């Protein structure tokens, strides 16, 4: 039995635990319920005073309005496309680099250090000059977000390298050596042996990089002027006091976040991310 638990014979501790957990639910989950409530109630109720907990009226008006006036679908698909492209490119470049870093002493320090250095750099210091650099290449405010994808790679790629490096470093080299003895090339050993064994790390990196790009605010705000992704769009609606519309967008943005809540725990439990966090 857990030795800490032995102290829990008093009812007092039990009661404090229950109260604490209730407070946690209140602080963490309740505000999200309020946003959902705001999304499904008419605008008059978002500005009413005092605000009521339970809505008087339930409506899909906010959704319909956004659909018609703001071409919601184009913003949503842009966000999705940028996140997907960022993720795939990060994994495509980052996983081979992470594997090479785990196998070569010289690359180990170069790769991990440049990944960490990129993580320290503030996005705003890159984003401001990028807007000027992108203009002659037609990458600023690109309708398909090509410029934004390049910017998001500076976040996704270091992450992919570190996840892959941590996963492959813990993998026994004997597997690859056995493959080499049987006539497999170096790249073949990576693609056929090491990569399939590290499927878990690949899946974790996929989901987390997707969400990094999906949630990203600074680059998206500065690089996309009219072809906006979801986070800056929510910001503009909030700025102009259209809480109902902002809440609808927020409700839509939450859908992939549910995934992370479900998966993050499992990745943490399996120690896939512990290697990254320890770097």
């Amino acid at each position, binding site marked *: 039995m*857990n*030795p800490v*638990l032995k*102290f829990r014979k008093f009812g007092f501790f039990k009661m404090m*635990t229950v109260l604490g*957990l209730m407070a*946690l639910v209140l602080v*963490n*989950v309740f*505000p*999200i319920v*309020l*946003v959902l409530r705001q999304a499904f109630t008419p605008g008059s109720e978002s*500005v009413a*005073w*005092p*605000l009521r907990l339970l809505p008087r009226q339930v409506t899909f008006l906010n959704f319909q309005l956004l659909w018609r006036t703001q071409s919601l679908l184009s913003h949503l698909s842009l966000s999705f496309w940028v996140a997907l492209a960022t993720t795939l490119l990060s994994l495509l*470049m980052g996983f081979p680099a992470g594997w*090479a870093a785990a196998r*070569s002493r010289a690359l180990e320090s170069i*790769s991990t250090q440049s*990944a960490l*250095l*990129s993580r*320290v*750099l*503030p*996005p*705003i*210091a*890159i984003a*401001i*000059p990028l*807007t000027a*650099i992108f203009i002659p290449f037609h990458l600023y405010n690109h309708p398909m977000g090509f410029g934004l994808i390049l910017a998001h*790679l*500076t976040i996704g*790629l270091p992450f992919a*390298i570190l996840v892959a490096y941590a996963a492959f470093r813990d993998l026994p080299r004997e597997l690859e050596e056995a493959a080499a003895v049987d006539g497999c090339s*170096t*790249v073949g050993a*990576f693609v056929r042996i090491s990569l399939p064994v590290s499927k878990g790390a690949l899946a974790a990196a996929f989901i987390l990089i997707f*969400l990094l790009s*999906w*949630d990203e*605010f*600074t680059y998206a*705000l500065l690089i996309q002027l009219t072809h906006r992704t*979801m986070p800056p769009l*929510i*910001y503009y609606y*909030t700025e102009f006091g259209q809480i109902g519309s*902002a*809440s609808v967008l*927020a409700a839509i*943005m*939450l859908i992939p*976040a549910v995934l992370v*809540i479900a998966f993050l725990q499992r990745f943490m439990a399996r120690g896939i991310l*512990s290697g990254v966090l320890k770097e």
Partner: protein
Amino acid sequence: MNYLSRRKLTYWLLALPALGFLGLQIWPLGYAVKSAVTNSAGHLTTAHFQQVFSDPLYWAAVRNNFIIPIASVAFETVIGVGMALWFYSIRKRKTFWRTVAIVPYAVPEIVYLLTMKLVFREHGYLNSLLLNLHGSTWIVDWFQPGRVLVMVVIIFIDAWRVTPVVFLIVLMALEQLSESFLEAARLDGATRWQLIRFIQIPLIVPALMVAIALRAVDAFRIFATPLVLLGVEALPVITSVAYHYKAEANNPAAANVTALSLAVLLFAGTLVTILFTAKKRDQR
């Protein structure tokens, strides 16, 4: 070419695209430096620096950019460690409760900030609740600029979102400890407090240091929280002032000076931290 050097070459070829791309970041950085030190005619000038450094908004931002991150990281550390110690002893439905605990970190940042705006704005949910509880005497303007209260609220909002990071790292470290340590101390008659103070805390310190370093880097780059909740002028930070110069004042050179000053600050901080920890490791 022999087998070994061919293998080395393969490693380098595989790493090249990623390293090359990361190296490309020199380009915008160099562009920013050039824009900061030259005028429109291309001559060297310190005018942009003088302009930024004589702007009271910038110095207010620098001040806030120290107060908010330091207070925020302190809050995350204390609350994160406290929650980890607490959750370590919760065994019933632990996955469910841990999921509840990491919700603020799992929702997108902008959605989290929107919820906080709905709760804390003047005609928001918190004030509605206070009105119903105690009438209008308890209503507070949480976001009123220039007061200590707004700073406290922003620090709380900023810190609460990322407390789960510290919480999870420390909780993982706690669970990796062998329970026999605790068992042995228990047999020797240690109290609950002594277990925490002399067994659990010392053993989680390495993991905690990593968590703090990670968090500090992000905390000093704070951008969206004050911008979305208050705007630039009400509570400036370095990043939001840079954004203001770029997007509102249309002065990219001043924006670059401001953003670069944060980058220099962060690099200097990282360097000092690395040197300091390396020195400590050598001494051991």
